[in-house]
């Protein structure tokens, strides 16, 4: 019905204990793992907020956090499928750099020569070129892994070196800048956000979608006489879901544009600035919207399509999937194509945000992406993982990084902390699985 990990939730454990917590979890069918991760996130946020003297839980910081998480979050959704089938992709960081260079050169050099500077189609074509390159590179690596039988670890370790080298080769190491003005909106910033009104509209649409999903799910279950959730649990899920969405919108809408940009905007549009200053809200950033859109599409692919079902089946037992008549090789190749496309999208976000393409871009991103997926509950043993979990994992990783920067922690110490957190998270996960199984 729902996510794989929700099916893996310990319903057996709560069978004997009928405390209020257990009954609540059973009625709402919430995944305890996911709740645990959200709890950890809240603890980290409050901890940093207190330690930094109230700097962390501000609209400004949370808005920036959301933008900084977007690129890793996008890639982590694909890494879930890769790891679920017991593969790994170490090349995403380098590939991000390579695609960034290609996209940069395309829009800063080739397309202006071809179409003229500032042509409105430049950003679309550059994005399409990036996605095509991502799909081709992913497909190539996937083909070698699935059809030639070279382990994914080796193929993508090779890719890590190859694509980083290739990124250098595109311009012999020269940084490409600036990017097309429209393309830059993908990276966020004051212009790269949709403003207060549209944020509210989008938030309300999302809320309606949540309610519609709950209602249609209930209708389907009733049609086939399956056990229904109690009404209060449905109401609770709807209330919390809508509350989170609208709360996020409210936070994004309370982060105003910087004064300088407001002044320029007012001058350009002939608006008189009142005495108290003009309040123009950012609203939700475009890269965040892209990441949320990717998350929704990937969740749909993972849970509602044949391809997604096969990915999880292969992760559980590849031989069984093969005997059931699934073309497992082709499925695995498709996963890597998808990973390449997602890397291209992440590359566009990060290139647009930097307003430049450099050949060092995305260095070590592969480790952050893998860590996000694993912290988000994707099992390296295969067969288990959720898209939403990985995206929350990405936010958690970025929260750690941002928080430590706010506290003025040195970079080497930051790396040490992130490394330790990863190991501890996987250790806790191992304990959790043993207890559930």
């Amino acid at each position, binding site marked *: 019905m729902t996510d794989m990990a929700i099916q893996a939730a310990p319903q057996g454990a709560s069978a004997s204990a009928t405390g209020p917590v257990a009954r609540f979890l059973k009625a709402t069918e919430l995944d305890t793992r996911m709740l645990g991760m959200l709890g950890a996130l809240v603890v980290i946020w409050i901890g940093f907020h207190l330690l930094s003297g109230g700097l962390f839980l501000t609209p400004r910081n949370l808005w920036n956090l959301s933008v900084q998480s977007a690129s890793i979050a996008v890639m982590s959704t694909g890494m879930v499928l890769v790891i679920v089938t017991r593969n790994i992709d170490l090349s995403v960081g380098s590939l991000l750099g390579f695609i960034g260079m290609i996209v940069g050169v395309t829009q800063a050099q080739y397309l202006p020569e071809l179409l003229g500077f500032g042509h409105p189609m430049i950003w679309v074509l550059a994005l399409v070129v990036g996605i095509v390159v991502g799909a081709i590179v992913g497909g190539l690596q996937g083909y070698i892994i699935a059809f030639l039988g070279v382990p994914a670890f080796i193929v993508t370790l090779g890719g890590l070196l190859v694509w980083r080298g290739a990124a250098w080769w595109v311009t012999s190491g020269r940084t490409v800048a600036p990017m097309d003005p429209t393309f830059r909106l993908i990276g966020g910033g004051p212009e790269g956000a949709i403003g207060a009104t549209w944020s509210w509209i989008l938030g309300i649409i999302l809320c309606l979608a949540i309610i519609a999903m709950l209602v249609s799910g209930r209708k389907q279950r009733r049609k086939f006489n399956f056990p229904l959730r109690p009404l209060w649990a449905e109401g609770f899920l709807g209330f919390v879901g809508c509350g989170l969405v609208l709360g996020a919108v409210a936070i994004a809408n309370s982060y105003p544009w910087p004064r300088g940009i407001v002044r320029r905007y007012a001058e350009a549009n002939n608006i008189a600035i009142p005495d108290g200053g003009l309040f123009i809200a950012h609203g939700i950033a475009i890269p965040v919207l892209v990441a949320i859109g990717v998350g929704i599409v990937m969740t749909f692919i993972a849970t509602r399509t044949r391809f997604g*079902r096969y990915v999880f089946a292969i992760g559980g*037992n590849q031989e069984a999937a093969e005997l059931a008549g699934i073309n497992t090789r082709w499925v695995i190749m498709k996963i890597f194509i998808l990973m390449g496309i997602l890397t291209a999208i992440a590359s566009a976000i990060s290139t647009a945000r930097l307003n430049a393409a450099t050949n060092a871009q995305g260095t070590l991103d592969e480790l952050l992406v893998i860590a996000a997926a694993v912290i988000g509950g994707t099992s390296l043993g295969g067969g288990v993982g959720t898209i939403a979990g990985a995206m929350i994992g990405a936010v958690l990783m970025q929260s750690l990084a941002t928080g430590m920067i706010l506290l003025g922690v040195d970079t080497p110490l930051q790396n040490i902390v992130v490394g330790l957190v990863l190991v501890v998270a996987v250790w806790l996960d191992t304990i959790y699985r043993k207890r559930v199984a």
Partner: protein
Amino acid sequence: MEKKTPLVEMKNISIAFGGIHAVEDASLDLHEGEVVALLGHNGAGKSTLIKILSGAYKRDNGKIFVNGEEAQINNPRDAKKYGIETIYQTLALADNVDATANLFLGRELMTPWGTLDDVAMESETRKVMARLNPRFQRFKEPVSRLSGGQRQSVAIARAIYFDARVLIMDEPTAALGPQETAQVSDLVRQLKKDGIGIFLISHDIHDVFDLADRVVVMKNGQVVGTAHTKDVTEDEVLGMIILGKCPPGAIPGPGAIQAAAA
């Protein structure tokens, strides 16, 4: 029965793995509503021969006929197209997904929008499981958490749900208790009545002698002989399995000891 076209006929099948002849020149057939037991020691080539029929292995030589027509079976999907379903010794279940996902694996029901129709699939699973294992209720759990018998019923449900015409059961009772074994025997009789041809593979003759119409004995990758169960005794079949000695009631195959056949 012998006069009719067999449901399945495998002729002169051979397969070798790295120079070792796992199956050599083996032939056998199966008719509608017939239970054929394929017997032999571990490593005699029974499972290999049957995996060729189910599409898991590609044969080096030989032909397969379904209803008298030559069949192209190169992978499991091909075999399923001919109505050949298999319950593997290992059950071949995807452990991390639930019973419904396993039952429909590779043949999912889809909604008009091209998405998985989980609700319809679960409803069908509940129906077929109610017939096979009425007490089964754990539809939402990954099959790794089910008991051996429950897992077995999921594997059986998967094989019979899609209107199988030929059912291959590889050591179907190896992991089961006496009560569950009796259940499987009842099921075999039921399916036989429905006109399904069944291959029972076992290394233990006692499991299958009463169920089978015919036995085919293999040794060292070759067929020792074929016999109607009414023409031979259990001891004689045991002699075929252990010594490769073909008794008078059986039709000798290429693997029979020549002296015994004379």
